[in-house]
């Protein structure tokens, strides 16, 4: 049962990553690529982390997983803002 | 872990050493020679690591420790090299 959930969640996660990298290739300009990417890959990481957390042997591992995801989300949000500015104002 | 499963990394490491050497000789930009130097270094580490595994007794900690030492030394050399590259450019120097 739990294994099944892990399989489902990791597969969904991979799907989001695939969509994200597809967007990275297909979208025509930097700004829209940025939008597609930051959402898709962080959702993907979140789903994978959730699937992995179901298999975790203890609370410490779950906390670490949350920390990894929080760090990735946080820096993706900041990067989207900073890089977005760079993309909006071509020097 | 069997030797076969590590074989790709052995081949990869040998290729990295060759690639890095090529870049170190032919690359005109100094910054990129530093990158090539780092590729050689990590190729050597990877080769060392991939060859040190054995089927039965698990991984050997001695190469691992030596590789960690090597990574830190490579970083020291990289930091100094980059400082030299920047100082060279600051003095208006052309790349050789």
């Amino acid at each position, binding site marked *: 049962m739990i294994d099944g959930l892990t399989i489902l969640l990791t597969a969904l996660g991979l799907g989001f990553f695939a969509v994200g990298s597809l967007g990275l290739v297909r979208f025509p300009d930097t700004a829209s690529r940025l939008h597609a990417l930051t959402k898709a890959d962080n959702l993907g990481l979140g789903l994978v982390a959730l699937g992995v957390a179901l298999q975790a042997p203890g609370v410490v591992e779950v906390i670490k997983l949350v920390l990894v995801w929080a760090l990735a989300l946080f820096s993706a949000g900041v990067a989207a*803002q*900073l890089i977005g500015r760079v993309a909006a104002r071509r020097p | 872990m069997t030797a076969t499963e590590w074989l790709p990394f052995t081949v990869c490491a040998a290729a990295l050493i060759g690639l890095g*050497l090529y870049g170190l000789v032919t690359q005109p930009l100094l910054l990129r020679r530093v990158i090539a130097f780092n590729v050689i270094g*990590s190729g050597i580490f990877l080769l060392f690591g*991939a060859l040190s595994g054995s089927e039965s*007794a698990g991984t050997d900690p001695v190469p691992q420790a030596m590789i*960690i030492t090597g990574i*830190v030394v490579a970083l020291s050399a990289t930091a100094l090299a980059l400082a030299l590259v920047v100082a060279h450019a600051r003095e208006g120097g052309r790349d050789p």
Partner: protein
Amino acid sequence: MSLAFNTLLSLIIVAVAAAAILGRQAFMAVVFFIAYGLLIALAWLRLEATNVALAEAAIGAGLTGILLLVAWTRLRALEAPAPSPPHRLLQVLAGAGAGAVTLGLLAAISQLPAVPGLQRDVAEHLPVTGTDNPVTAVLLNFRTWDTLLETLVLLAALVGAWTLTRDEDWPGRAGRRHRVLPDGVLAQFGRVLPPVALVVGAYLVWVGGYQPGGAFQGGTVLAAAWIVAVMTGHLPAPRVDDRWMRMAVLIGPTFFLLVGLAGLVVGAFLYIPPGFAKPVLMAIEATLAVAIAATLAMLVFGAPEQGESS
């Protein structure tokens, strides 16, 4: 499946290295190298070397990438003249030579006899080393000479970088002054990240005693905390003659040498008596982590150049 993963990973690593080395633009090469470091860290995990993967993630992928980005920014501002590409003949010769090295290595590897590693010897003597992490045992007890000299190499790199300071800038604050909007995104980033990095760095130093981690990996993360605080304008970089900074840089090698000399009294240079091994190793780990963090951060800040930034 395991073999398929390793093969694909190896192929991607070689492709990324080729792109970093053969491509045209310098910035692209730097970004490729950052990706390269991450992939190499994955390779170390596949090779069951989590200690090395940690070091590669922190130092190889992380700090080296940051050093390269900073150097690239400096070089662009200095507008160094573009060098001319090498002669065609040199390229051909270098290609042939490099190919020969790769093939020669592969040929030599295929002739290697299978020898047992040292894991059994390490495991046998692990109880007297004062740590349960075999890699830490090798670094800080079995092969202490290597590690002592390594800390001196780090120190020498910092001294070497400092010798490039121009006379009028010495002794100023390290690197250039950073200017950041006080309520911008960057400043916000700089408030959140250093505390997290401090906790993670201290944790890695601590767990190095019994699982993957240690002074080098933890010290690098501590250095990252300081680097972020300076780059986001929350802390000024220290002056290069700052007493506290210099003490932090020197405490690691100094304590290590003292331990070595104390060993001389009871046996041999760098001999650590088993009864004292645990507290001594913990003290070495802690002082080394502080020294490594300070030295690496100072290397990223660079030689004083505050005159230019105003």
